[in-house]
């Protein structure tokens, strides 16, 4: 489980145990060495005493009378079997302990180790100053090991018992330390989806505050998006109600009248449905323009080719109003963008040009490169847009007052959105003597 508590606990216990193991190893080594020294020093001391005593005895009595009283004596301490000594004069054994054999325990001078009676022993072979007497003292390794073990165990047990206790304390500590996170989680969990105010946790640890800041930023953005969506839905439903009311009322008029009046009302029902469908289509286009989705499908798009295609599509509409459609520009004006969206943009602009231009007017599409930018211009010699509202026409559902041409008020919002997605700019200029020119730079 990926829990901070468990990870911290494992990490801390791991570090603690490793440090402890290393420490134990170090202590063990040191203890072993010190014990060796102390015991070896004791051997040296014992050999010296033996040699000294023996020398003294030899000068006091005849060597032939020298015999040990020790032979055959009953041991008084269980450890007696674990120590042994021999005193030699040349190759004649003068003296030995019960536990020592009749042969020299060690033949080399100084300290040595060896087997004796199935046990490991430590020996000291010492020659006296005259070079005649030799004392050999020995001691089983078991004695040293026993002491070592005792010391190590005394260190080991308390810590082994302390470890689970330590783990428990650490768990409690960490849980307490993580409490702010838990209360933060509870705060967030208790929120309803519409509750998007900032999180204002007070006692937050320093490490958590960047997280809270990011969550707050995200919450703010989500709130803004939801707000925009709400506004859009409200606007959209509002905008749909009027055409629906028109359809309903026209239908009711058609139902209660006869002849010409009824026919005309029915025609207007159809007109109303067409208008509403157009509005719905435009609304859908607008909502589908999600930059993150669209920008993934960017490709090389030849604006001239697309303009020609859209103009060909709209030629029949232009023909009805006897409007001249002209294209100025060479092929090869390539931008990085979305072909379907640029097509929607051009269709909206050229359609506007046709709709808001009088019979026999002109709509000109120009594509050319100016510096780094590709500039697309759609101009007409139609009604024109007053200067003071040239920014407002990009607002959703904005329609110019007294406009006699039916429309959704969304066409230029869509144009703006498409331009934004392509990181371009759009501006509306006036034409002389009258008319509109929309300039887009991508």
């Amino acid at each position, binding site marked *: 489980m990926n829990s901070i508590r468990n990870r911290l606990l494992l990490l801390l216990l791991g570090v603690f145990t490793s440090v402890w193991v290393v420490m134990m190893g170090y202590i063990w080594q040191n203890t072993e060495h010190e014990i060796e020294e102390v015991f070896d020093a004791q051997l040296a001391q014992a050999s010296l005493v033996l040699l000294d005593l023996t020398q003294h005895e030899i000068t006091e009595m005849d060597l032939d009378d020298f015999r040990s009283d020790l032979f055959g004596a009953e041991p008084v301490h269980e450890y007696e079997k674990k120590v042994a000594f021999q005193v030699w004069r040349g190759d004649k054994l003068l003296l030995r302990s019960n536990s020592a054999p009749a042969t020299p325990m060690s033949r080399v001078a100084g300290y040595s180790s060896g087997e004796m009676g199935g046990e490991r022993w430590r020996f000291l072979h010492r020659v006296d100053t005259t070079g005649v007497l030799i004392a050999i003292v020995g001691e089983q390794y078991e004695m040293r090991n026993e002491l070592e073990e005792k010391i190590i165990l005394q260190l080991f047990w308390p810590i082994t018992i302390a470890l689970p206790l330590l783990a428990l304390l650490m768990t409690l500590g960490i849980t307490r330390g993580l409490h702010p996170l838990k209360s933060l989680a509870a705060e967030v969990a208790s929120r309803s989806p519409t509750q998007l105010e900032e999180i204002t946790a007070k006692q937050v640890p320093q490490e958590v505050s960047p997280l809270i800041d990011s969550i707050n930023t995200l919450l703010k953005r989500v709130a803004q998006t939801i707000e925009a969506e709400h506004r859009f839905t409200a606007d959209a*439903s*509002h*905008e749909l*109600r*009027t*055409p*629906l*009311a*028109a*359809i*309903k*009322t*026209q239908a*009711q*008029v058609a139902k*209660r*009248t006869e002849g010409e*009046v009824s026919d005309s*009302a029915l025609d*207007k029902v159809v*007109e*109303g449905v067409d*208008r509403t469908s157009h509005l719905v289509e435009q609304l859908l286009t607008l909502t589908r323009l999600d930059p993150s989705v669209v920008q993934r499908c960017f490709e090389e798009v030849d604006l001239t080719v697309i303009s020609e295609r859209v103009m060909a599509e709209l030629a029949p509409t232009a023909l009805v109003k006897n409007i001249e459609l002209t294209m100025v520009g060479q092929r090869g004006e390539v931008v990085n963008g979305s072909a379907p969206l640029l097509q929607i943009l051009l269709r909206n602009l050229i359609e506007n040009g046709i709709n808001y231009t009088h019979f026999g007017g002109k709509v000109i599409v120009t594509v050319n490169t100016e510096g780094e930018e590709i500039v697309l211009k759609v101009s007409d010699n139609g009604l024109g847009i007053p200067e003071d509202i040239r920014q407002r026409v990009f607002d959703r559902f904005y329609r110019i*007052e*007294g406009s*006699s041409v*039916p429309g959704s008020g969304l066409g230029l919002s869509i144009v703006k959105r498409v331009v934004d997605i392509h990181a371009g700019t759009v501006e509306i200029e006036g034409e002389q003597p009258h008319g509109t020119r929309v300039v887009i730079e991508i």
Partner: protein
Amino acid sequence: MRILLIEDDPLLGDATEAGLSHDGYTVEWMHNGDHGDSALRNESFDGVVLDLGLPGKSGLDILQAMRGRNDTTPALILTARDSIEDRIKGLDSGADDYLIKPFDLDELSARLRALIRRAAGRSSPLIEIATVVLDPATHLVTLNNETVNLSQREFSLLQLLMEAAPRVLSRSYLEEHLYSWESDVGSNVLEVHIHNLRKKLGKTFIHTIRGVGYRVEEESE
């Protein structure tokens, strides 16, 4: 009954005008707020039906201005905004009723009738004077409990006179409330209708007040 309709949507305005005209109202349709406002200042209407989101003066501005100059013409708001706040704002601005788009033509007509009736100070939907009973909802007129057949114009004229009784209504007032501006009114059309009504309802029901106009009276002489 002369109604001022202020609605900027061409299709909806057209249909509302046609529908209300069919129900016997005389409808004047203004396409924007400014025109609607000046129509209200210069003419008299029996009721106003207005949209809130209008180009030029907004519906609420028109209402407030109207009530500010003590114009008590009944007003009904037609709007796409259905929030409670919007309704309250509309009613507080001086509207008498509220309909949310899309609405039902019959309901609009019925609500207008009720508004006009209340404005005239009547609580009964039927107008009864002497032995003549007029039902604005069904367009039925009875004399001594017998149905009288009236043309649309005759009915409207009778309704105007009976609603106003015992006041005298001038010729110009009657013409204004019977015909919208576009229609061509002949000089003696009103006399013809009065003549026809007298034929159907008896000579003494409608009185001519010389040099002033016409009226109907409770006590026939």
